[in-house]
């Protein structure tokens, strides 16, 4: 990695630019789509709160927590928008170490279900640092690959990126959190692909991963993870074990029909048959209560958001911007695909949150950082005119 330097000259940009230009550079559409998706998330938190039988604004209710994290997300988004993203390049190494530190901390003092270590309690709230790791690693990889522009088709660039990703990925696997580790891999793959890495190297890597799967099955994956994967391969046989959730999710989704059963009306027909509905399976509730039409609207919002992120990446004259956009888009696309795919029974359950809609503080904060950086990139693509 190159030496990262603070560049005082950049501070001038914002102050010297006219407000109108800033307004034009700011991608209002992106903010609107993100806000709409966050709003859908709040609506789902609301309906789940009602169905869980708690008062909506009662402290600790699902909705109240979602509201709090949405507020925090908005602040983070605004701060990141105002923050000159170019500083991130300077801060890449410290970010990498902080990230690794947080993941080690999670392993040390974290708690989770079934002996795993995923959450760290900060006061009354639980925070999942592996969620933050995704966006932090996008920053680190964008900095690294951006600095290697011109040499991106070399094997060294690919190996370097992989080497940077390896420690946090391994720490996440140790938790163990298969879902997040897969998201990290998808980010790596997406960013390498968009950086222009040689396809043959990428294919060779993909082949390597495929060969590693049997080894991983034997030595790395825990029993419950294997069970989930097996239950995906044959969900109707064991409707009681891990396949139970997948089966129930499909029943829930299917019972929504084209137009849905209406918000807060789902619980009566779910009757508690879909466990953990408020976490990774929230899309099942969404599809049930808002129907095919509602799900379609959410898909369209996601596609529009991805389009805006990719446009930013395309417009960016800074390779960091391009790569950051690519990483964020890869992350969102992969998470939507795997989460929804799991709910509707075309992919195994891996515990990946649905961006904006799964009620998780870390996930939302992570997205707010990402989108804030994207806006920051949008705002700072014009040369100083003086």
């Amino acid at each position, binding site marked *: 990695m190159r030496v990262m330097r603070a560049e005082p000259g950049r501070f001038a940009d914002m102050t010297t630019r006219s407000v109108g230009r800033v307004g034009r550079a700011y991608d209002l559409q992106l903010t609107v789509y993100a806000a709409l998706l966050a709003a859908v998330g709040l609506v789902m938190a609301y309906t789940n709160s009602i169905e869980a039988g708690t008062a909506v604004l009662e402290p600790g209710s699902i909705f109240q927590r979602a509201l709090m994290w949405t507020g925090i997300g908005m602040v983070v988004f605004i701060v990141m928008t105002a923050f000159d993203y170019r500083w991130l390049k300077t801060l890449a190494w410290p970010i990498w170490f902080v990230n690794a530190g947080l993941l080690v901390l999670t392993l040390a003092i974290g708690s989770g279900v079934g002996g795993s270590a995923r959450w760290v309690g900060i006061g009354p709230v639980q925070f999942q640092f592996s969620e933050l790791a995704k966006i932090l690693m996008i920053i680190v990889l964008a900095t690294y690959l951006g600095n290697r522009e011109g040499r991106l088709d070399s094997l060294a660039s690919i190996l370097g990126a992989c080497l940077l990703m390896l420690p946090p990925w391994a720490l996440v696997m140790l938790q163990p959190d298969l879902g997040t580790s897969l998201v990290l891999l998808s980010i790596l793959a997406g960013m390498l692909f968009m950086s222009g890495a040689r396809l043959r190297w990428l294919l060779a890597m993909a082949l390597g991963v495929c060969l590693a799967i049997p080894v991983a099955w034997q030595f790395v994956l825990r029993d419950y993870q294997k069970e989930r994967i097996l239950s995906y391969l044959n969900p109707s046989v064991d409707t009681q074990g891990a396949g139970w959730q997948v089966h129930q999710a499909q029943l829930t989704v299917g*019972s929504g029909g*084209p137009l849905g059963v209406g918000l807060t009306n789902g619980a009566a027909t779910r009757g508690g048959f879909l466990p953990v509905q408020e976490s990774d399976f929230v899309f099942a509730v969404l599809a049930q209560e808002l129907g095919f039409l509602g799900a379609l609207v959410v898909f369209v919002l996601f596609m529009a958001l991805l389009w805006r992120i990719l446009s930013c990446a395309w417009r960016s004259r800074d390779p960091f911007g391009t790569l950051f956009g690519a990483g964020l888009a890869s992350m969102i696309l992969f998470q939507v695909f795997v989460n929804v795919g799991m709910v509707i029974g075309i992919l195994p359950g891996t515990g990946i949150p649905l961006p904006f809609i799964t009620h998780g503080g870390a996930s939302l904060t992570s997205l707010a950082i990402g989108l804030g950086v994207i806006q920051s990139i949008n705002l700072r693509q014009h040369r100083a005119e003086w």
Partner: protein
Amino acid sequence: MNDGLFNANRERDRRPIRFLVFGIVTILVFGLLTTRLAYLQINNGQQLAAQAEAQRTAEEAIPATRGLIYDRQGRLLVQNVATWAVKITPSELPFTERDDVAHRLASMLGVDPTEILTTLDSAPGSRFDPVRIAQDVPEDTARLVAESSDELPGVTVGVETRREYPDGPLLAHILGYTGPIDEGTYAKLRSRGYLADDLIGKTGVESTFESELRGTYGIQLVAKDATGKELQVLSNEQDAVPGASLTLTIDRTIQREATQALKWGMKAAGLKRGVFIVMNPQTGEVLALVSLPSYDNNLFARGISTKAFQKLLNNKNKPLTNHATQAHYPPGSTYKLVAGTGGLQDKKITAKTKLRTRGYLTLGGARFYDWNRRGFGACDLNCGFGHSSDTYFFQVAGMLGADRLAHWAHMYGFGKATGIDLPGEAAGIVPSNQWKIDALGQPMFGGEVYQAGIGQGYDVVTPIQLINAFSALANGGKLYRPQLVREVVGSDGKVISSFKPDLIRKMPVSQKTFREMRLAARSTVTLRHTYNLVDMPVKVAGKSGTAEFGKRDAKGRLPFHSWFVGFVPKNPYKADFSKPDSELVFLAFAYDSRTKGNAGTEIAKAFLQFHFHIKKDYLNRDLLRRGNFYQSN
């Protein structure tokens, strides 16, 4: 200043094709998700919604109250008692939690967890049918389990009624008991509305009148949550109809008298098994039917432990077997009824015909001994039957031949189950030439015909067959099916069926023959073959029997069973046996008695003393002492 930093002047390597590919992948991903979603929600929406609905609601059976059972005097013989039962529905118990739940539940119920798992695995129904883990659970245990339902997925606690038999062993062989349905029965009865965790009559009239007693189960629609917990009853689709009640022909008082008499005799003689039956020969009604040893049917109704069940099964005196109907034994001299009736009816002899009796007959170089080694001299029917002369009946049997003897045995109902309302009745064996050819490949030898004539050799009968044959003698040739139920009354009070004598056959035998045979039976008593039975105020006719079985001991003596079958006239105090008017016939059977005298006769006398409230004691206790008095019957 920033050109170098932003690479703005360099041609930016944006890779438009990769952007395009990314875009296409995005569109493909969402296309795939949308397609699958449309398949689930639009194509299969209704079906999946129905499936979701179906798992939430369940049709549940409302068990019907089982019908009650009364004795002929209207005394209640069985009660329905509400008890707590713990059940597990396997489909609602995640496999991964099975062991945990079994352990937790086992510690609450105080049983072995493997027992719970075994019960689960051997359950007859599907995964969706509840399996009874424990019945008759104490209330506080039931409450504990119910309150821990969150940690016990799939476990339910419910009220179910079980049978309580106040008289226990007294009527166990008649009433039987109810118990959990087994796999094979469930497979057969499932279509008739039986549940996998149903209780069903297993033996006795509980089994034979199962369909009457059971009633019709109702159906209710209930809402359930994911743990299988019943949330509410949505609707009553069909009300349960309580089962019909039975009034038995059994009189509990007579049953007690018979039991008391048999127990006394068995104790006095040190016997291990015995049977006592009392019938009304005019109708075929069974008034008492005792098979000892008995067992407590409440053990089964409460859910017998494997250990207790094994103990009953391994008891060599077979308390679970109804020896009156389910086992057959050699009838001994009581069978001379057949040879006598046949000889008279086939005109081989008349009642007056005198046959020379002696210590033994020789046939084909073999000697066939009379029980009396001196013989009785020239003997007519009353003498031959009354003294139970073997050589007399060897000759009668020889005159009849194997097949005519078998014919008359069949006429009396031997060799075929009587059709009494109890399960598992044995048929007995009537040897004939054809039977022996089928069974052993050759016809009967002459000596075997002799043996058949006196109820030895191949002859085996069930006690119920034997008493039924004597009933036909007592009533003048009407062979009735022995019955146990007088009346079936529906829950609405309407009589579904009332008692009708069920005639198997009117025997093709003249009343004269029967009269002569009854008088011959009376002479058994009057000739003091049965000692002081003749002195009793109650006038009895009958036949004793001593049937050898098993292996000879060191002194060459065979163990034997003792029988006595008798009847009293309509007016039991007037010795008139010319009319077929008897309303009481009784049978005593002492298994492996080896007493000095005939234990059956003493037991019958004890019964008569109880039944007719005879104050004076006529019992000969010394005859019940062990000692091989008889060399041969």
